[in-house]
């Protein structure tokens, strides 16, 4: 088994639009700004606030606007975080694309209201009912065909693969925290066992999207005192030998990533300060640990207990042993 190290981290969270900003805010004890959800009147919900993302220029960070038209909110966040992580680790320069694996998680499918509104409005009859006939006659012609790319769950990671030229083994798990944690385990194992030379691992989620937000409240997955937060994190993992061979600075040694069943209550250690980022949360937590945030705040050494909605009543504890390079 190879020693695994992290050589790139990218973050877009309610605490900062980059890894450095997020880590600095986390260390300083910062909390996300909250505001009422902007895309609809959420007063009917027990809590209608969402965490505010800092402003950032996605086209500047992705080197152009060409692909943005294909991207959902989650895809934009994921691509920006992946670009930051891959740039830091110089993956394109150092690895053959086929030897880089992509291990991702995505959240609930969530197109923006502005994307689906024309489709729905044109497909509704005079009685306020959805009509298949009107969908065919008016709704589909009035809809941008790119909508399909925004709602297919595999698209955010596929966009990352295109943007970063990643061509190796891959998995995309969905839609909750435990699946994100599983992607992390797969990535770590793939590097440790030599299946890939480099693993780009990450997740993005946009639970503040109206359809997702309402469902999360309805299903009781978001407590009345919790607010949803969009966010993304990507980390580049490789073997210590690979990093040393090319003189690549190491951010952290990742000695183990372990996911095991536990009976303790679910615990998102980021939720109170950052908002609930669901599928992105374990990856953000891991990224912060790789940035050494454990020294000043409870990240490394703590555990992330993920509810497993696919296995009712069970919980997964994600434990990582990550040590800063220093």
């Amino acid at each position, binding site marked *: 088994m190879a020693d695994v190290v992290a050589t790139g981290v990218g973050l877009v969270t309610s605490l900062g639009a980059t890894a450095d900003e997020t880590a600095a805010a986390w260390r300083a004890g910062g909390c996300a700004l909250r505001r009422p959800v902007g895309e609809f009147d959420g007063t009917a919900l027990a809590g209608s606030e969402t965490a505010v993302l800092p402003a950032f220029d996605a086209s500047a960070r992705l080197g152009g606007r060409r692909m943005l038209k294909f991207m959902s909110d989650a895809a934009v966040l994921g691509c920006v975080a992946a670009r930051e992580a891959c740039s830091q680790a110089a993956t394109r320069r150092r690895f053959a694309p086929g030897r880089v694996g992509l291990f991702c998680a995505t959240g609930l499918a969530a197109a923006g209201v502005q994307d689906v509104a024309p489709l729905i409005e044109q497909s509704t009859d005079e009685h306020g009912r*959805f009509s298949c006939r009107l969908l*065919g006659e008016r709704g589909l012609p009035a809809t941008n065909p790119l909508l*399909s790319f925004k709602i297919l769950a595999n698209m955010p990671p596929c966009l990352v693969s295109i943007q970063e030229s990643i061509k190796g083994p891959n998995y995309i798990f969905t839609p909750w925290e435990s699946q994100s944690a599983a992607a992390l385990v797969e990535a770590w194992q793939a590097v440790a066992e030599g299946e890939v030379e480099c693993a780009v691992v990450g997740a993005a989620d946009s639970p503040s999207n109206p359809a997702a937000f309402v469902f999360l409240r309805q299903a009781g997955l978001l407590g009345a005192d919790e607010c949803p937060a969009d966010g993304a994190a990507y980390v580049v993992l490789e073997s210590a030998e690979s990093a040393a061979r090319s003189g690549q600075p190491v951010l952290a040694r990742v000695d183990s990533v372990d996911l095991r069943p536990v009976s303790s209550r679910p615990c998102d250690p980021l939720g109170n300060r950052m908002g609930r980022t669901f599928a992105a949360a374990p990856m953000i937590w891991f990224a912060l640990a790789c940035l050494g945030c454990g020294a000043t705040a409870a990240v490394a050494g703590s555990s992330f207990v993920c509810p497993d909605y696919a296995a*009712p009543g069970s919980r997964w504890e994600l434990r990582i042993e990550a040590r800063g390079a220093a």
Partner: protein
Amino acid sequence: MNRVGITGFGVVSPIGVAREAFWQSLADGRSGIGPITRFDCSAFSVRLAGEVKERVDLPGDDEIAVVAATAAVAADDPKIGFALAACAEALEQAGIERLTRDTLLHLGVSLEVFDMQKAICGGRPDFRSIAERSMRPGAPPLQIPLDTASRLIAQLFGMPGRSLTNCSACAAGAQAIGHAFRSVRAGRYTAAVCGGLDSMINPLGVGGFQMLGALTTDNARGESACRPFDASRSGTVLGEGAAVVVLEPLDAARAAGKRVLAEVCGYGSTLDAWSLSAPDPEGDGAARAMLAALDDAGIRAEQIAHINAHGTATRVNDEVEAAAIRRVFARTWQRIPVSSTKSMTGHLIAAAGAVEVGACLLALVMKQVPPNPFLNSVGQGCELAHVGHAAVPFDGEYVMSNSFGFGGQNVSLVLRRCDG
């Protein structure tokens, strides 16, 4: 490292519910494609699909509440019921009554069914009203998350050690099987239940693919509308269903007196990193997936004796896949029989790879490879040793199944004959 055998297979498809009906239709070249009956598609340009026409009985259980809840969800989202039925059939064949902490459950699934009526208030997507309505006691869920089938399987058949849901589009089912194969081979689980489920035969599913131009509008052709690799192919046809296989360490299964239907021995997974909607025109990603699967199986290309192609019947995909197969099997492609079973089942999207692994498995067991019933004139650039209109006898040792996903995710799996 364990060798990994398939000890159970269950399927719900447009050409038959359960193994025997599925295989009989495949062998006879019988298509399950016909007019869409699920919703009024008269104003759509696409009006064909491969629907599951037979009644799918949900597996029973002592816990009536669980079954009732399951039925309610399945009524809203048909793919859930398909997955439960396929899972029950596979587990029964494998002689497994309950999932345990030593087992892995891994299913591929693509897109939530989104009932647009739930998103309409006052003729528009008014989320204030939607929120009010959704929070009332007894309101139906606004979404059915993609892991719902896994959750219900756990409730009905027992809690697995780990439950994974992947959403790798058309490669999802095959990827779930590939991942499960690797996990059992590495000794992480004593059994894996894996496969895929899907149904996009709903207004938004058909409408979305229609907008992308991926589906044929040649509705007059009816059952023969999906014609992979044919010169007159004009797009794919959506199908629906589910397929599940049970994987176990081969030696342990045999020691337990189980019949091992076939061995899974190679898995390759790659990304095109090219385009969201079109494959790499050189077929590089597809070729690398096939080569990776061969390498993983420790065999040479010359040892593959049958290929179940991804074969969607879209203009570009078929040509690219054919070129990739010719490149990988440069010395033998002219004598490897190729079947494209989507011609009969339609494209089951996330379930497609698992259904086609099932077709390969049954080809090995039944010693026949399925026909291409609607392939009349091979398209330019699609030259391969396509099987004709009738099934042909087959006694080869290794077969390959290809699944290439929308978005550029490619999976190839290698299965090996395992008599007894």
